[in-house]
Every structure is written in structure tokens, then in C-alpha cells.
């Protein structure tokens, strides 16, 4: 199992860098993931998306559909890519500590 060092602590991740244990997530982890992708400071809009993702995941056990994410947060897809360079799945979900989606998606 690969590991990643974020803020001096080691975390198990999969081959694409997603946390394997969502419970170990904290805000500093999100900041550290963001820094790895060149985003040095998280804005309120970042947090709106990240908090939405975490709440949805806790309730439903999976990540929301992208259409639902954009509609419920009001963050349009184009802006989403400005906030999260690799998009809602590969950046936003990863920074929010969600595991990688499974199945034919």
C-alpha cells in the first residue's frame, strides 16, 4: 500500500493518491493535498465544496453525482476546475478525503 506524507504524518493512499481511511481526514490534510496541486490557500468556495462532499459522503457512503454537486453548491463546473485543478473527482473528492469512486464510472 503506498503512503503519502502530509504535514509530517503518514497516510495510506491508493495508487491515485486517494486516502484509504476517510476517518483520518482533517482540514490540514485538505490544505496539504491542495498544496501538492499548486493551490496554496483554500478559499471559502473551496471549503463549501469540500464540506458538501464530506457531509454527502457521510450520509450516503459514496460521492455525489457531479451534476448534483454543482447544483447544490452553486459552483459551476468551469469554476470548479479553477478551484480544483483536476476537477471534482480527481481533486475535490481527494482533498475532501473521499475514497476513489468504484464500479463502471
Amino acid at each position, binding site marked *: 500500500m503506498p503512503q503519502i506524507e502530509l504535514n509530517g504524518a503518514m497516510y495510506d493512499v*491508493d*495508487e491515485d493518491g486517494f486516502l484509504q481511511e476517510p476517518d483520518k481526514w482533517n482540514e490540514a490534510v485538505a490544505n496539504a493535498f491542495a498544496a501538492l496541486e499548486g493551490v496554496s490557500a483554500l478559499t471559502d468556495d473551496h471549503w463549501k465544496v469540500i464540506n458538501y462532499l464530506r457531509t454527502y459522503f457521510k450520509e*450516503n457512503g*459514496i460521492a455525489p*453525482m457531479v451534476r448534483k454537486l454543482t447544483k447544490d453548491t452553486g459552483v459551476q463546473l468551469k469554476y470548479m476546475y479553477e478551484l480544483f485543478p483536476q476537477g471534482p473527482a480527481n481533486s475535490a473528492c481527494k482533498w475532501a478525503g473521499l475514497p476513489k469512486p*468504484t*464500479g*463502471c*464510472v
Partner: protein
Amino acid sequence: MKPVSIKKIGTITDGPLSPNEINDLVPLPPPYDRVEEQPGWKKLTKEQEESYACDLDGVTGLSLPKPKDAAEEKRVVEQFVSGLKKLLSSENNWTFLQPLTLTIDYCARCQTCSGACPVYESSGGNEIYRPTYRSEVFRRLVKKYTKTGGELFAKLRLEDIDLNWTTISRLYELSYRCTMCRRCAQACPMGLDNALVTHELRKLFSQELGWAPRELHEKGTVQQLAVGSSTGMKPAVVKENVSFLDEDMSEELGIKIETPWDVAGADVLLIHNAGEILAWPENPAAFAIILNAAGIKWTLSSEAPAYDGVNYGLFYDDFQLARIVTRHMEAAKRLGVKKVIMGECGHQHKAMMTIADRILTGDLNIPRESSITFLEDIVASGRLTLDPARNDFPVTLHDPCNIVRNLGIVEPQRRIIRKICPRFREMTPHGVDNYCCGGGSGMALMSQNNFKDWRVSVSGRKKFRQILDAFADCPGPEVKKYICAPCSNCKGCLLYTSDAADE
């Protein structure tokens, strides 16, 4: 590429048995012709090399841990032999024994299959990817370990393969270097099926040793049986998602979209690949619009797992296949529907339509039909008003292996496309001679270590080239183009390949 003898699979080598070389790969047309700009595959890290079996070709998609000690290795060898014997016995392999035996007994070694295999060709002729390489190793092991006097004859015939950890772990990885597209089987003059050997090996590993890719097993069939879907969607979540899509798409399109749930006695139960709902939501919405417009009495089911038509058991484990398809059909029976329609998912078609015929008995054997023929009937009936002018852009069609080559559904989708896409063009070759997307047999889902890199560069290469060729007259981004691929697995694989190409 260097020749690799069959026996060498059981010999420890300095580095991988037969590594891929980027310079050997079949060339691509411009602008993808420069080898140095191609993605290639990540070199395994020292940690990966130390932890996992990865001495086949320098790629590892399975992260199989190396054995702890000699006792574990011995146990693995014994289990493998026990599994071989089961594959060759009618009590334990009633599903595929006959075609397997024929394939073992009648290969003429003509190599026609190698010429048909996209993985072998794209790799530039890596010996171990020949359909016959895997099969010949299997054949020799079957003869040696399941026939009377087999071990002696193996020595006399100079065919002896050492059965050890190296052989077994390499065979495990090698059984995930074939997409089971069955182009080889179609080409074989003797009617033999080397893709079946791939399948039976995967089955042996799963059913006897408990080895399977976690994307197909833990996250796949196990999750589907436990939660309802390999995507992790529970019944309440799938209903909420579809209801959200109904509302959102109604707003966007100005058409009222309503999806019926759990309608007892409906004519038709539609079972989508649940990945469509999450990743390709226009698809389930389009189905709802079309079926409602055509006046079909249809329904979705919210009973787990009958809202997710996938059945990854088809790829690696007969037991998981049977468990899932039985539950699909029990849900259909409880609803009392007349017919089940399979959504746009190739392996769902094969699992539910053909393989399940040997599992579903009595009133579970509910009629099943492909959504493709079902949609064609609707289009041909004239009940829909279609406007081809809306699709005034170049369109090509990908043929999912399981639907087209393996089930013979070739023309219905083309008759639909010709009615609605004025600028349709075929790939070469197409229909039953199509090439796999590169991710068949579950390989589109597999992503461990450097496996995805291999898929893009090797197994998906032929299809990528076909798509470039189909749009050779309009290659640039200024012309919007459309690839119609009626299978979630193929779509996911093609999207990943094209993203890799963009990079």
C-alpha cells in the same frame, strides 16, 4: 522482441520475463507518432518491486504479495493443482468444461489467433501476449497434473514446466493481459477459444486461491451483493439520484421526464449499468424520454441489486456470477414483469442473456432482451419524431465485443444511427471484426500500480488508432466529433485513453 520459450515461465529471470519496450509498440499516426512524447508506463518503485509479484512484463495490476515462506509457496502450488483438476471435471466445471477440453486438445499451433489479437499486435509482438502462449502453458500443466503418467510424459516430451510460485504468479498477471475480446476465437480455424483459457485461469485463481483484482471482487461483486451496486449506491441513494436527474434534466430540456420505480406487472424492467446514472446521466435520462414517448409500460427496480446490471462475476468467478444474476432475476420475478431489458453494458448482456441461461431455471428464466434491439423496434415503429439535422457532426460507432462479436447484434444499432446521424462513418474494421476498447473483461476498472499506463499504451492502442483513422479528415478540435459506444465499460476506457492522449 525476443522469443520466450514456454518453459521459461517457471524460471526465475533477472528482471521481468518479457518486458515491454516502448520502441516496439505499433506506431501511431501524427500527432501521436513521436515515441518520446508517448506516455509509456511508470517504472515500478523499489517498494512495489519488493512487495509484489511483478516479474512478468514490468507491469503489475494485481499487487499480489510475495509468499512469506516455503510453506506458503507449497500451499499455493497444491491449491493450483487442485484447481486445475476441478476445471477439468464435470462435477466442478459444468459451465465451460466442453469448450475448454476442445481448446486444450485440438490446437493446431497455426498462430492464426496471434494475428487477430490486438494486445499481441499492439505490443509489437511480445511473445507472452500471444493467445497461444498462455494456452500452451495451461495445456502443458493440465497434461502434467491431471492425466495419468502426466509428469513422466512431460519429461519425455521435453514439455516439462516447473510449477512454482514464479509460474503461478506470472500466470495470474498474464490472465489480466487479455481482454477476452475473443477476436482470437473468431479467427481460429478449429473453433477454439483462447479467451476461455484466460477466463478459466482467472476462475481458478478466484475460486481456488481467493485471488482476484480488488476492483472486480471487493469493490465489485462483493460490494454489489452487500450494498446493491458496485458503485456503492444503496437503494435510497439510487432513487434519490435518478429523481434528481429527472428534475434537473426536465429543467434543462423543458421536457417533463419521469422515471417509474417498482411498477408491479410492468411490461419491461430496464436494468441499467448503475455507472451510467453516476457518470453518464444523459443516458438514463434519454432512456426515460424515449420509453415514455413510445408509450412503453416500463419500470426500474429499487431492489438491490436489480438497479445495477453489472455482473463482474462474468470476468473471474462463476459463483459470484450466479449469485448476482439470480438476485437480478428474483427481483424481476417479484415485480412480475414480462421482460427484462439490459441497459448499455456489454458484459451485462453476455452474463444475463447467454451464460445465465445455464443458471436460471423455471420461472426465473424471464425473457431478456438487449436495449439495442428494443430501441431499434421503437425507432422503426415510427412512434418517435426524430430530427437528424440536430446531429450534424461526424459520428463513428464503437462495437462492444460482448454485444457485437459475442452476441451477433451488429445491424440494429447501425439502422438507428443511419436514421439519426447524417455524417456517420464506420471504423475499419468494424462489426464482428471490431477491436476491443482496451478495457474489456473488467480491465477498464483496474487501476493498480502502472496497469492503467499499460492499458493506454498496449491494450487500448488498436482502438485509439481506429478512432484517429475514422476521423482522419477532421482531426482538429475545431470539429466536434462523437464516438457512439453503447457500453459503460468501453466508454470509461475510451475516455481515459483520450484524456491520456490529450496530456
